[in-house]
């Protein structure tokens, strides 16, 4: 699975709660594609039903100009993300962030969060699913 880097100068992370509804559709995302983004958080909402944040990508050398702009990043419920190591204090507005997610199929700037990459290279996963390169048998 190819991961393309997308430079993001400013990532706004708005963490919005997503419903805790039992039937959540990921049909709008390309769950087979993992794309890397980096930028700065502009809004951060740590609340249910889903954690939600905004990421602002600024044009830069090596960045596909079509990817510049503001991205909506959808996480999971607070509890599910807490169990993966997230807390309310994991990020705040103005923090730089690198993340890998599944983009919207229709090309609009929406991402289903897969994991964030900490400065030390370790990963903060959204959910229990893992890529093949990061499993513990």
């Amino acid at each position, binding site marked *: 699975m190819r991961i393309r880097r997308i430079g993001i100068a400013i990532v706004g992370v708005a963490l919005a709660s997503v419903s805790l509804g039992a039937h959540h559709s990921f*049909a709008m995302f390309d769950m087979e594609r993992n794309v890397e983004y980096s930028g700065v958080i502009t809004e951060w909402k740590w609340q249910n039903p889903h954690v939600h944040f905004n990421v602002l990508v600024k044009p830069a050398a090596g960045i596909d100009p079509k990817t510049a702009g503001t991205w*909506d990043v959808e996480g999971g419920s607070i509890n599910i993300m807490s169990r993966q190591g997230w807390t309310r204090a994991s990020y705040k507005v103005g923090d730089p962030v690198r993340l890998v997610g599944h983009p919207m199929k229709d090309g609009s700037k929406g991402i289903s969060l897969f994991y964030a990459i900490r400065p030390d290279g370790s990963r903060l996963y959204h959910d*229990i699913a893992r*890529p093949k390169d990061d499993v513990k048998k």
Partner: protein
Amino acid sequence: MRGSLVVLFTAVQMVGAPLYIHAQSPGAPQPHLEGDWVRVDPDGVNSFDGLSAVVPPAQLLPGVSAAAGRGGGRGRRGAPPTDPSAGPNPEGVPYIVVAQPCAGGGPGRSNGALLVNPDSGGVHFIEQKDEVIFAGERGGVRHIYLDGRVHPNPWTPTPAGHSVGHYDGNTLVAETIGFMPGGVPGGGVRSPQTRLVERFVMSPDGGRLTITYTWDDPKIYQKPHEYRYYFERAPKIESKAGKFSYALEEWCDAGDPIEQQPIVPPKQIIK
């Protein structure tokens, strides 16, 4: 002297009667299952929906219809849109919406149903000699009775059935019947007569838990349908007061308008 021994023997019997060896009885709970756990993905399936794909398909009897797409997954691939929005979506308004808003008392997650097929939420065990409580922080509680009781008859089927259990060494073995009809991971089906045996097996270091599910029903399955889920101790949550593991409360307000957005997201305004 012999008489003294007899007296001694009798006295010991009388004194010893209410006393007993301080040893754990075979049925007493082992304390290590207790605590907080979270499911893990040992196969690298890349998404939550992929977790259900690794469950082997159930071998159903001819004429028994598979319960397509049920169990094991939180997402629904290809779910049809219900009420497409007409207008654009301002930046920052979440567009991930749900097909069915939360409902605290509904059958979906209440009454322990979710704990028959745990998802990504934390689960918790409290062990007491007469009962193990298996609770999920995404809703519901299961009672696994260890006190020797039998399944009630009659019994009105419920989402999580009726569970009795015992310890086989360090393994908690639970037997459940009395389910409401429904699906089972791997395309299986269950009825109130279907029997589920769960074996909760700890790793030697107590850090990993494997739950082996075996569904059996001579009217449904060609052979018992078996699969495994894996769990690890939930990581402790770090705070200024220290690192602790504790149950989280999952809040859901069905009256929140955000819960009732259409499943098809409005087109996003791209800046």
